[in-house]
């Protein structure tokens, strides 16, 4: 009852369950501007989808969720296209480098170790920093003025002086910042490398990078991140279809109907929440995923063999 056969995954699954998973992850995507791949793929593995199909089909559903989310944020004036394109170009270059790095690591037999450690470290650092920073900001707001909090990212540190000294400064109207063209390109490359190593879209790294390193306002960050993720996932979906034939359209369509609905609700709620509340929620989810991965690395697995593929 309510089961559908997934021809590429080669198994059958409950439609309501898939719709619910799509909806929940889409909600988070619309809320925080992350693709949700770091959440959806492990969830699909848990319900019995083969890892290669889960990762590839997830990219396809992220295309829909990020289209829906980008569209919603664009209507609200929250997408900085100029910044998004620069980050995207950097991301593509970084992704290509990252794939080569993984090839070398695989040949050396250390790939999985590096991937897992990078995953835990990145999630841990990003989650912890964002959590603490948002917590501090929320506390300060209750006591003193909010102005200082807003001004805090702009404190005249070495970093600020350094980015101001970079050539080719450009005004990004939507984000309200003036930065060198090189900065989003370089940061895009770095995120692209990390995303390729970890096998994820990189939204959960890109969002803090935009907030803390590009000093963009949180609401523009969410819209711009979704816009950039859209293109990354279009590329991944087509490449996976051509090379590995493991995009399950039935799986993706059910997920994407749920995720696009969820993304719209998430985008609406993100407008009502304060930037620090959004950040603290995303940080909590990132930290939860990090703990879950860490536990799976420490506890003995049920089987010493697993099917090859996936993240």
């Amino acid at each position, binding site marked *: 009852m309510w*089961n*559908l*056969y997934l*021809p*590429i995954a*080669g*198994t*059958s699954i409950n439609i309501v369950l898939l719709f619910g998973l799509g909806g929940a992850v889409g909600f988070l995507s619309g809320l925080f501007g992350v693709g949700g791949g770091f959440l959806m793929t492990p969830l699909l593995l848990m319900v*019995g989808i083969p890892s290669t199909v889960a990762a590839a089909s997830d990219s*396809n*559903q992220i*295309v*829909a*969720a*990020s*289209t*829906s*989310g*980008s*569209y*919603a944020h664009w*209507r609200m004036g929250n997408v900085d296209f100029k910044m998004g394109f620069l980050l995207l170009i950097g991301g593509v270059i970084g992704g290509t480098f990252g794939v080569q790095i993984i090839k070398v690591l695989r040949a050396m*037999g250390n790939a*999985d*170790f590096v991937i*897992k450690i990078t995953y835990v470290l990145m999630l841990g650092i990003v989650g912890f920093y964002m959590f603490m920073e948002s917590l501090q900001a929320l506390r300060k707001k209750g006591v003193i003025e909010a102005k200082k909090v807003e001004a805090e990212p702009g404190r005249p540190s070495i970093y600020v002086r350094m980015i101001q000294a970079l050539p080719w400064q450009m005004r990004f109207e939507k984000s309200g910042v003036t930065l060198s063209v090189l900065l989003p390109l370089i940061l895009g490359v770095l995120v692209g490398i990390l995303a390729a190593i970890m096998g994820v879209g990189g939204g959960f790294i890109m969002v803090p990078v935009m907030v803390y390193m590009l000093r963009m306002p949180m609401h523009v960050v969410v819209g711009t991140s979704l816009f950039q993720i859209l293109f990354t996932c*279009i590329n991944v*979906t*087509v*490449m*996976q*279809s*051509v*090379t590995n*034939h493991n*995009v399950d*359209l*039935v799986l*993706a*369509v059910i997920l*994407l*109907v749920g995720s*696009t*609905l969820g*993304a*719209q609700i998430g985008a*609406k709620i993100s407008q009502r929440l304060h930037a620090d509340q959004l950040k603290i929620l995303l940080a909590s989810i990132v930290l939860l995923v990090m703990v879950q991965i860490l536990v*799976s*690395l*420490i*506890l*003995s*697995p049920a*089987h*010493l*063999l*697993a*099917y*090859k593929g996936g993240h």
Partner: protein
Amino acid sequence: MRRSNNGLWWPGVTLFLALLLGPAGPAAAASPELRLSPNQVDIGTFFEGAAVKIEGTMPAGTTAVVEVVGSEATEHLLRKGRRGGLWMSVGEIQVHHAPSLYMLLSSAAKIPEFTGAATPWGFAALAKQVTFSGSLQPQEEDKFFQEFMGLKQGEKLYRVMPDALHTSAPQKGQVAFQGMLPLPAKVPPGQYKVRLAVVGQGRMLAHQDAVLTVKMVGFPATLSNLARQQGLLYGLVAVLIAIITGFIMGFLFKGKTAH
């Protein structure tokens, strides 16, 4: 004379042969029958596994063993191990000659085994058939065979089911049996060899073979063929569907929240 000698000699031989074959009476009876219903399972849009009825007849006093075996393939698996105190994939292992599906049903409470010879069915027989290569030592093969069995049993693709064939009361020296073969949703499309072995006195007395076909049909078959034969088109269609759905949802929500 010669004629009369022959007349005495032939009945003697017949009697001798009858006495010789007498103890194996059940085997001497009609050959066993095996029927599958249906003998083709279609994987359609709402497929969630299937049950195939297995029925047949065998001589009274014998045990039926039905073995269902899928085609052999090489499986590529990752071996988990500890590195720096953490569990992760530490190498690739290839498993050769492992059937895509292995099911064993029997009419006895314990799967019958041969006396004085290797039993040709069950996980012990599979252990002799399956070989390993990749990152493992020869002394680790037994351990990883057990791990492989655990993986397949978890997916319900390998199962041993004693007492799964129910027998009726003997009639004219024959016993009818029937049972259900549970095919999981993960059953790969293909041809499956089904063998009924009639076992008595610690050996196989007779056998009967059949073929079970599992085939993808309708929408799943069309989609699967498109994905494999027209990868680029399939990928572009997938992206297009995703973008259109994303826009439609965005547009619908815009209308609803405009009040």
